[in-house]
């Protein structure tokens, strides 16, 4: 009977637009790019009422991921995706270097270095990249401004960036493997490998060890702490043409002039699989989910699960317009970038990228602020080059050699071993009471004392 007042503001309170904006992670550029496409396809969309609009968007997005860049002038292209997978760096053999935000197809910068370009590599973020040119190593920013010319690094053929150590590893034609600390701009080490021209290089993402392939069919593993190779493996009868290591650091795939493709278990350094490719693979790359792509001339082939069961035929194959010079899977996307003589092709490879990214580690959708935060954080958590080794967990172990030496010194100084475990010696008894059984019994009586923590040892250690 009580007259109910009518709520003047029914339902939930509306959220302020400003606040909503704060949380919006949508890509404006992407949507802009899409709008053009949608203009073309609206008619189709309207006609096909049986498809949900969401699905249409998905289809369109994936369609957007396939594209060709027709760059026939500046010859075979090397490429590199940034770690988050948003940016693409292309380096043409004849000097053309360009940064592209490939998803929105936005060209960030484009320069011609007027020199032969051997390799291009992003540094820790999208702001800087390194270009190995004919003579020296150069560092540019994303706008294409030359930041550094590093004269210490000459005749670089291949580069790898170790993101957790902020190290740029370069392999030169003179046989030198050099490490550049990009956070301080200093050379960490230069190792003369004495293995000739170093044209094949990759890194093990698990332990930041550099793998080099050599003309004599060997693959050598390097860390900046040792002047000699950590491991040398004889993999091929001919020269090694290309090699790649998977994300977990467990498997290495190599291809050689003997037209073989081999899969190695890096934990045991044993071959797992060996395949014969009619034309041999010139470039290799492994995706985050373990798909292997190999290029033979102008054909790119993708294989699934090369180290598990033996593969008989490729998962995908695609012919590009020119001879392939660079291959790279885009992180967190089902996309394979192919740099070739006639430009660049971005092809779709279903199941290649990791669908779940760790936003704290690498966030493809990071805002500017987040990227800035991330840079500071990663710099603070920079790993020292000293810690690079075959086993990354070695840091957590006690240095036994030094420990033993120190312990010995201590023993000498004290005149006894403070950690020695004096074994219980039962007294010799007569009249047959020292039979082995009786002795055992007596030992067992005091056996529990070993399990207790010795108080004095505990304190005066």
């Amino acid at each position, binding site marked *: 009977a009580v007259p109910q007042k009518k709520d003047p503001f029914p339902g939930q309170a509306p959220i302020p637009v400003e606040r909503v904006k704060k949380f919006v992670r949508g890509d404006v550029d992407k949507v802009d790019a899409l709008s053009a496409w949608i203009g073309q396809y609206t008619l189709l969309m309207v006609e096909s009422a049986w498809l949900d609009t969401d699905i249409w968007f998905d289809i369109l997005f994936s369609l957007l991921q396939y594209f060709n860049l027709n760059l026939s002038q500046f010859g075979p292209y090397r490429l590199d995706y940034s770690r988050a997978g948003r940016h693409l760096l292309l380096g043409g053999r004849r000097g053309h270097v360009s940064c592209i935000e490939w998803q929105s197809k936005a060209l960030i910068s484009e320069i011609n270095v007027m020199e032969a370009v051997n390799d291009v590599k992003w540094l820790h973020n999208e702001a800087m990249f390194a270009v190995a040119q004919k003579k020296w190593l150069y560092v540019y920013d994303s706008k294409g401004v030359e930041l550094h010319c590093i004269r210490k690094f000459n005749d670089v053929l291949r580069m790898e960036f170790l993101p957790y150590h902020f190290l740029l590893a370069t392999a030169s034609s003179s046989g030198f493997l050099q490490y550049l600390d990009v956070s301080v701009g200093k050379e960490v080490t230069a190792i003369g490998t004495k293995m000739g021209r170093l044209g094949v290089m990759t890194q093990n993402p698990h332990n930041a060890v550099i793998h080099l392939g050599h003309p004599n069919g060997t693959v050598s593993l390097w860390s900046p702490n040792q002047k000699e190779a950590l491991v040398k493996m004889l993999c091929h009868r*001919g020269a090694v043409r290309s090699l790649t290591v998977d994300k977990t650091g467990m498997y290495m795939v190599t291809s050689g002039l003997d037209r073989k493709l081999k899969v190695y278990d890096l934990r045991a350094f044993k071959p797992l699989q060996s395949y014969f490719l009619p034309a041999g693979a010139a470039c290799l790359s492994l995706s985050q989910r373990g798909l292997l792509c190999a290029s033979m001339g102008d054909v790119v082939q993708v294989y699934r699960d090369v180290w598990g069961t033996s593969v008989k035929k490729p998962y995908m194959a695609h012919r590009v317009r*020119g001879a392939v010079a660079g291959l790279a899977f885009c992180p967190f996307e089902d996309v394979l970038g192919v740099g070739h003589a006639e430009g660049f092709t971005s092809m779709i490879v279903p199941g290649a990228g990791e669908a779940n990214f760790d936003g704290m580690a690498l966030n493809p959708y990071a805002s500017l602020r987040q990227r800035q935060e991330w840079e500071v954080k990663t710099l603070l958590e920079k790993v020292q080059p000293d810690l690079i080794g075959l086993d990354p967990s070695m840091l957590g172990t006690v240095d036994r050699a030094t420990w033993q030496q*120190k312990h010995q010194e201590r023993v000498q100084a004290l005149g006894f071993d403070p950690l020695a475990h004096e074994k219980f010696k039962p007294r010799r008894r007569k009249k047959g009471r020292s039979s082995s059984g009786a002795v055992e019994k007596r030992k067992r009586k005091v056996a529990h004392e070993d399990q207790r923590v010795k108080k004095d040892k505990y304190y005066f250690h």
Partner: protein
Amino acid sequence: WGGSSLVGNTLAYEQEDPGSNPTYYHSPLSCSEGKGYLMVHTLVNFHIFPLSHRKKLTERSEASTQVSEFSVNAEGEGEKVKLSDLLGKMEKTPKNLNKTKKQLKDLEKKSDTLELPLSRQEKEKIQREVAYVKTSTEVSRWESVVTQNRNAEQLVFPLIQEPSGPKRIEQVVSGWKAQTPLEQEIFSLLHCNLQPTHDPVLTPVEEASLKAMSLEEAKIRRAELQKARALQSYYEAKAKRERKIKSKKYHKVQSKAKRKEFLKKFEDLCKTDPQAALEEFKKMELLRMEERMSLKHQNSGKWAKSKVIMGKYDLVARKAMQEQLEMNKDLTQKLVVPSEDEEQEQEEPKALPDFVNDPEPVGDPANPWMRGQLSAEALGPEVSHEVERPTEQFPERKEEEEEEEPENEEEALLREFEQKRRLRQSEDKGFEPVVSEEQEVDEAENREAEEELSEKGEKDDEDGLAEFKNLFNRLVEPVILETGEEQGDEGLEEGLVRIHSLDDTELLANDHEASLVEPVPSDTSNMEASACPPSKNSKKVKVIDPSEVLTKQAKVIKVPHAPMMVEDEEVRNEQTTIIKEAFAGDDVVSDFLKDKRKLEEDSMPKVVDLTLPGWGEWGGVGLKPSRFKRRKFRIKPAPLPPRKDQKLPAVIISEKRNAALAAHQVCQLPFPFTKPEQFERTICSPVGNTWNTHNVMRKLTAPKVVTQMGAIIEPIAKDDFIKDKNPSKPQPNLQLTKDSSLAKTAPPGHKRRKK
């Protein structure tokens, strides 16, 4: 000098009179310090004061007839003191003077002297020792606190902290009075009910009840009970033991003592309560009569003894004895009259049915779980019990029968499942797969039978039958298997396992064939090749054929697109030359092997030859030191641990230690660890927020010491760690009198602690 003896005297005198003024006491040490003073002092005391309080105080007297009690005056100057007066006094001397005289004499006689006082050094040593013991005990009290603090994960200073949050008004405001009538009324009400306003929220009554239930009380009570029980058991044990003693003398003595005691009591009773005594007496009489009556008429009495002696010669006496013995027999014979109780007992078991003794009578009829007969199935013999158990024995359950029927069905279902499960289990064990036809027929029959039975719904019968069949099957199965196998294959002795495996393999093979319609021969060969080559080679390390290692059977991959590129002629030529170079020979391989061998040789420890040619024998050109010498002076170093790449012919693994890493590694174990493994296990779990949730990270990286800003951190005091002896210290309660002001309640923790 004689001082020492005097001191001794005083001491002796002290001992005699403990009641005397304690100020006289001096320790031997102090005596030695001021000997002269003491002597005078004691002597004066000796004469001035009486020896004990009991003795009457004698007045101090001057040698004059008239003595003022206030002061010595010269009033009686004229009166001269006569000698007789003095003598008179002498006669009246009290007894204790004699005593002292005696003591003095004794002293003179005493020849042994007291020990010399200790030297200063020795004295100080003793003092130090005592002080050490005292202080060490004092300090050792802190030990536990120190270790506790040392091991604590986190220390928060100041140690005693004020409770956070808002304080009660009583703590802040002091001297507040209930002024308004309302307040006064409320307070009076509270006061009437003894309701505390704050901290102890409980009323005194509640507190008391809580106290009654307190743990300590319960513990005490329990201890008491325990003790009582123990005492009882001791007593019982004692009584039992005493009862078992066979010594007649002991029992005689015991009974005699008892009797005596009883008599004593009786006499007492006579005096105090004659009526009760009379009744007691009557009881005693009765007892005696009974005893007399039941006396064994044997040959132990006086009369009987005499008769025994006489019996030798006297026939009458012998007869009398005879009679006496017969009488004894009659008297001592036990009557075997069946009592009524016994008869009843004999009848009872007949009246009660058997199931009374069954361990599981009808449970709670409402509880379906209690009625379940499924569990009974497991016990073989009980099944028959159940079968026999007719429903008449449970007339009261008849009414529930109808309700039970659906449940029975369910149970039957359940049982079926159980059966199936069992069958399956037996299959798993390997009986099933080789069922011969007979067996199958048998089983089919069984199943049919079972089904029929289940249809009938006679669950108990079915149950029993099924059980039986199951058992039977299990017994029969192996037999059948064996016989069947013997028929089939006589050579195989142990049937079960082998047959099973054979069959299985066959099956597997079939399966394989079925699955692989298109056999791939090259594939299998590859598999084999890939499985073993390194291990094969590892056996003959020195003679490895590296080509084998490298030419691992490679699988040919069919490529859909053949490379269509028309490469430049030059490039092709280059490539061909490169390939030619590469395949020129086994150069690559042999080089690699050479490298490896060289490395191995380099890393091998060298043999040191310390022979000196010409030492102890002839030396010169063409002369070699003898073989014995060479062997003796050649030092062989201990072999190195095996190389990591020992079994990998195509791999060289560097054996160098990572010195750069060693700088970052821990080489000395930190405090609580005793073994490197322990430390490694602890350190391998990451601490940072990259790897942990925020809360966990905060917990892991909590600082060891936390201080409050602005708070004064006092050094730790004794009160902080030595707990009060009565922890239930009553908290200052508010006195709820009408007019009393609130007790002053200073906030705790503010007073400065004493050190």
